[in-house]
């Protein structure tokens, strides 16, 4: 018996050594993204599925919140040790791509004929450059109207329909703004949105009124045009005159998301809000954004993947991107319910359309692509958005009129565009 044990131990030791040998031959790549712990879990599943197909590659998934994420990537990049694969937000992509730190994926794409066939074309647009793709979309977000059914029912207002114009929307919002508990101050508003960045709200309104946002190539911020001004007046009238939207100070008393807090009957957001709103105590649904004088327009944005040029394992990193971009990866991601898959065959299948976590009209987010404009994508985007947003904010807090704030926003924006050319 003793002899047997010894032999068994020896065999075990040999086995362990062999296992360690193969472990050393494995390549580990890192994938970093911003997001919630739930997203980390979902991505871990994608990574595990990938590892099952590629036993020689291990994927280390790291998730950080939005702010920490971008700081970390910058510092890692400056230190020469960037993650192999990292998540990208389309508007910020030119800032990274133009600085030559991303791997050109074109040769890899060329080696996989048909890889882009099944993808919604507008989601690819942001990542296209004259030298090819330096990143690929991972999922997309179209903005839709969310509404609180309980509040509509209680106020006896009809639910938003596909025929709604912005005037219908404004009228309903006014009817839904109330002092529910009767203490003399308003505690339910018809609508809430953040009006700083073009997404989720003001970009779509400006477009729907026939205006435009920015022409980065010409270095021009276009939100001061006559048509855009009509949109701004619409937003300001609804907010400052009707008072159908909570001010920042009012919102702060309830949280950061007015719709989720249950104080606003309507909100505009992308699919990312679905997991946040799903556990809400009230009943809610989604509808298309209202129509403006120039028709119905919403905005679409896509998050994507990029590979660092300094990655020591570009081939393995590409294998992972290809997998997550492919059907298996996309189907797994569809289940998180945070975004819409960029692959038609997955988005238009039960994997996405029939999500157990939220029984809403998922098709609406796909249909929105037909009337969606791409959220602006250019070098210096974040700085431009902050500069414009600072000026807009002076209008929303009442320190300046819209007619004064918008020219200042244009001036601020143009300064940034000039600095980033």
């Amino acid at each position, binding site marked *: 018996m003793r002899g047997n044990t010894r032999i068994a131990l020896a065999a075990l030791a040999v086995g362990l050594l062999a296992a360690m040998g193969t472990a050393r031959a494995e390549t580990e790549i890192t994938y970093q993204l911003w997001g919630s712990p739930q997203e980390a879990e979902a991505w871990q599943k994608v990574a595990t599925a990938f590892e099952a197909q590629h036993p020689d590659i291990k994927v280390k998934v790291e998730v950080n919140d939005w702010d920490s994420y*971008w700081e970390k990537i910058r510092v890692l990049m*400056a230190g020469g040790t960037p993650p192999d694969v990292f998540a990208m937000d389309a508007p910020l992509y030119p*800032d990274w791509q133009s600085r030559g*730190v991303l791997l050109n994926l074109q040769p890899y794409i060329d080696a996989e004929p048909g890889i882009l066939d099944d993808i919604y074309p507008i989601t690819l647009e942001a990542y296209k450059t004259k030298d090819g793709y330096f990143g690929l979309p991972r999922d997309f977000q179209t903005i839709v109207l969310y509404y609180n059914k309980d509040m509509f029912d209680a106020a006896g207002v009809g639910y938003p329909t596909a025929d709604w114009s912005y005037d219908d929307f404004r009228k309903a919002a006014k009817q839904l703004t109330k002092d529910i508990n009767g203490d003399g101050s308003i505690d339910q508003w018809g609508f809430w949105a953040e009006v700083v960045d073009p997404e989720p709200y003001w970009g779509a309104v400006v477009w729907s009124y026939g205006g435009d946002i920015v022409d980065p190539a010409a270095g021009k911020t276009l939100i001061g045009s006559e048509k855009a001004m009509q949109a701004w007046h619409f937003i300001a009238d609804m907010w400052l005159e009707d008072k159908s939207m909570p001010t920042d100070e*009012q919102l702060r*008393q309830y949280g950061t998301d007015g719709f989720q807090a249950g104080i606003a009957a309507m909100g505009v957001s992308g699919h990312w809000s679905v997991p946040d709103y799903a556990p809400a105590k009230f009943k809610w649904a989604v509808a298309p954004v209202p129509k403006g004088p120039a028709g119905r327009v919403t905005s679409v944005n896509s998050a994507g993947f990029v590979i660092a040029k300094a990655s020591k394992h570009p081939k393995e990193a590409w294998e992972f991107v290809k997998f997550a971009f492919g059907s298996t990866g996309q189907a797994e991601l569809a289940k998180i319910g945070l975004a819409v898959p960029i692959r038609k065959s997955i988005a238009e299948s039960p994997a996405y359309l029939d999500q157990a976590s939220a029984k809403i009209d998922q098709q609406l987010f796909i249909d929105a692509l037909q009337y969606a404009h791409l959220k602006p994508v250019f070098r210096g985007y974040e700085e431009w958005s902050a500069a414009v947003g600072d000026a807009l*904010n002076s209008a929303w807090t009442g320190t300046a009129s819209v007619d004064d704030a918008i020219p200042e926003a244009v001036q601020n924006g143009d300064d940034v565009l000039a600095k980033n050319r």
Partner: protein
Amino acid sequence: MIAGLRPMGVEKLWVLLLLGPTLLGLALGALGSIFATFGLSLFRWDLLTPPVWAGLDNYIGLADDRMFLRSLGNTILFSALYVPLTIVCAMTVALLLNRRIHGVGLFRTLYFLPVISSPTAVGLLWTWIFAQDHGVLNGIITSLGGDPVRWLGPRMALYSVVIVNVWGAIGEGMIVFLAGLQAIPREHYEAAHIDGANAMQRLFYITLPAMAPSLFFQSVLSTIHAFQAFDYIYILTRVGNGNSSVPTLVFSIYRNGFRFFRMGDATAQAIVLTAIIFVFTLIYFRIQRRWEVPI
């Protein structure tokens, strides 16, 4: 004074040896990063590509950078209110707590509590106090028949954040002042008492002159804190998209360096901030030398 004791012989070696690690860390960490910051401020650097020489361009650019000028203005206004208020409040509290009253330990602890509390948690608590409709402050005001105040609105926000920051800084100033107060020899008061000095006279002719060193020390410290103020202000005034309705210098530095790919501009702003603090410190030292009262 204890400073009269000087190390001799082998002791000198020990002093150097024991201070060495700290001094080295200070030289490399603090001085090193100050020099590196100054160096970087002469370059255009986005963290991703190699720095490009810019000479004084980053500094010249600050003159017409609206977002920077706005944050500089906010910071100066904030400091002008914060420093004197902090000194006066901390001194008052220290004077009140420098006597034998019941539960003096409890009071001292209460005043010191904000110093060791998490700024994020405290900031959120103040958000609730300042809240427009359901806030504690407006609750009191309306129950007394007044109109609710928009504490965090455009007109009041700066003053509201000054209140929070002063409140948060009283504890620290109190400790410094209490130490100063307790170092004043009792005989001075006894002598004054015999000479018939009243409470006011004792305060102005004994306490305050004797407190000069603590007052100067605390003024320097408060000024530094004022120009570096960030956490409470950001929590109370943040708006969507990472912006703030009361942007401060430190906020501007952070945004330029880590969000806008402008490390050069950010470091130039940091140098301006350092220069401002340096000038104020120099002024304080000048005044102190003129005022110094030998005890």
